[in-house]
């Protein structure tokens, strides 16, 4: 897989600029060994954030040109921070991503509330360059930094009754002012079937473009399911719940005729608001054809064998 170069995005919100630059310089000199011990001394940022700089390339990456990181972090749907495309960037600084914890419960052997550090500790971070297709008819190519969701779920020992996974975003109108208006039923919820959640393509991401996840992109922990429309890839996750019943996604609850549970990218399934046959790749002019499962059909089509994709949209 070709190594890609990209402009280094602005330092994260979490680490002050000087410290960030200093850390980068230090890392170059000291290498990986000192890293985990030295990083906490240099800043309040957790050690795992430093690991991103050297996250190795994982499988399934595309070699298409990357979306300009300023666009990927400047054009977002994150209604918790407003409905305009540029509202999230403007308001997401209110989100406090540290400390952060995630409640893992339901049909698992080891339920509990875990700090982000606990969650990340055993997982090696890797970079995965995925296409992202929004239901609104635009797409990006983003190098995520994260690890397979399946690896995390296995650690908490799902029971045989764990048929689905429910995810929930933080609910705190002080940090997420968009939650003051009742445009959606907060907190935002999303769900996957267990086999979708266990699929090696499905990621939990903590960064992008080799750096810490910008708040507006769903820091500190978000889902990335590249063969589904973007709204399935829930952001700023605080709860993961394994259960027997199929969860109801927030958008499905709002508009069941428009947003289904599966929300697989499919140019053949019509949506009343946006034509799904084509998409606009952000940064390109004109439109390109949209591919079934966002081009990941070889890897995921088996999950839906025998299903009527028009009915289960």
């Amino acid at each position, binding site marked *: 897989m070709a190594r890609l170069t990209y402009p280094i995005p602005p330092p994260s919100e979490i680490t002050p600029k000087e410290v960030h630059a200093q850390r980068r310089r230090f890392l170059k000199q000291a290498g990986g060994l000192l890293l985990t011990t030295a990083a906490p001394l240099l800043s309040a940022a957790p050690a795992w954030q430093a690991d991103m700089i050297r996250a190795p390339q994982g499988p399934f990456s595309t070699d298409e040109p990357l979306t300009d990181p300023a666009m990927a972090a400047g*054009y977002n749907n994150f209604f918790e921070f407003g409905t305009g495309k*540029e509202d999230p960037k403007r308001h997401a600084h209110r989100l406090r991503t540290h400390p952060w914890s995630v409640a893992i419960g339901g049909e698992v052997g080891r339920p509990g509330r875990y700090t982000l550090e606990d969650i990340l500790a055993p997982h090696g971070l890797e970079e995965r360059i995925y296409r992202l297709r929004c239901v609104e008819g635009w797409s990006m190519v983003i190098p995520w930094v994260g690890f397979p969701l399946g690896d995390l779920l296995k650690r908490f020992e799902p029971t045989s009754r764990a048929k689905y996974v429910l995810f929930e975003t933080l609910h705190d109108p002080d940090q997420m002012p968009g939650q003051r208006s009742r445009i959606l039923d907060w907190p935002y919820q999303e769900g996957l079937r267990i086999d979708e959640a266990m699929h090696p393509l499905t990621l939990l991401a903590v960064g992008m473009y080799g750096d810490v996840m910008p708040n507006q992109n769903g820091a500190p922990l978000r889902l990335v399911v590249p063969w589904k429309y973007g709204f399935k890839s829930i952001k700023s996750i605080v709860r993961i719940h394994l259960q027997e019943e199929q969860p109801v996604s927030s958008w499905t609850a709002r508009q069941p005729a428009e947003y289904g549970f599966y929300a697989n990218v499919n140019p053949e399934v019509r949506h*009343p608001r946006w034509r799904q046959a084509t998409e606009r790749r952000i940064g390109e*002019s004109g439109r390109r054809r949209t591919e079934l499962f966002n081009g990941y059909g070889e890897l995921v089509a088996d999950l839906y064998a025998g299903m009527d994709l028009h009915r289960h949209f």
Partner: protein
Amino acid sequence: MFIGAALPLVWLGGSWLAGTLGVIPEERLLHELGRWGLYLLLATLALGPAFRLTGWPGFPAVRRAMGLWAFTYLLLHVLVWMMMIQGGSWSFMVAEVQELRHLQTGLLAWVMLVPLVLTSVNRARDWLGRERWQRLHRLAYVSAAGGILHYWMVSRVIETELIVLGLIFGALVVFRLAEGWNFSSSGH
């Protein structure tokens, strides 16, 4: 009036040139033009009631110009959609309009404005006769209703602005009905 109606356009043009319309400037342009077109259309409809309530002849005097400004914004709105969003490709445009109800609604609302523009000159009004001209120009209400419907259909969630515009339009219709369809628009 001229300055008020032209200002958003000047601001949009300037921001476009300065590159300050955000990540996807043509999308912002499309949205702003649609919104200002609708504001001006509603403002044009409000001039009648404003005159009835205040008796100030300045209101009806600017009605034609304001209506034409509204149309100008909406013409640009459609042109931006055609040339920038759909890249000027007929096949894309036709496919989109065939499939999407909100575009059909917008198109209908927009097409209704065309005869109003064509008959906006005095000669056309004389030719039609005042009575018929006025009846024709009630299409502006239908167009505004279509515009609001179109806005509602493109909105992913119900925003306050949409509710406010709907209420303003409702009030205008109520006022018009209360006054009777036949009151004359003196001064025009």
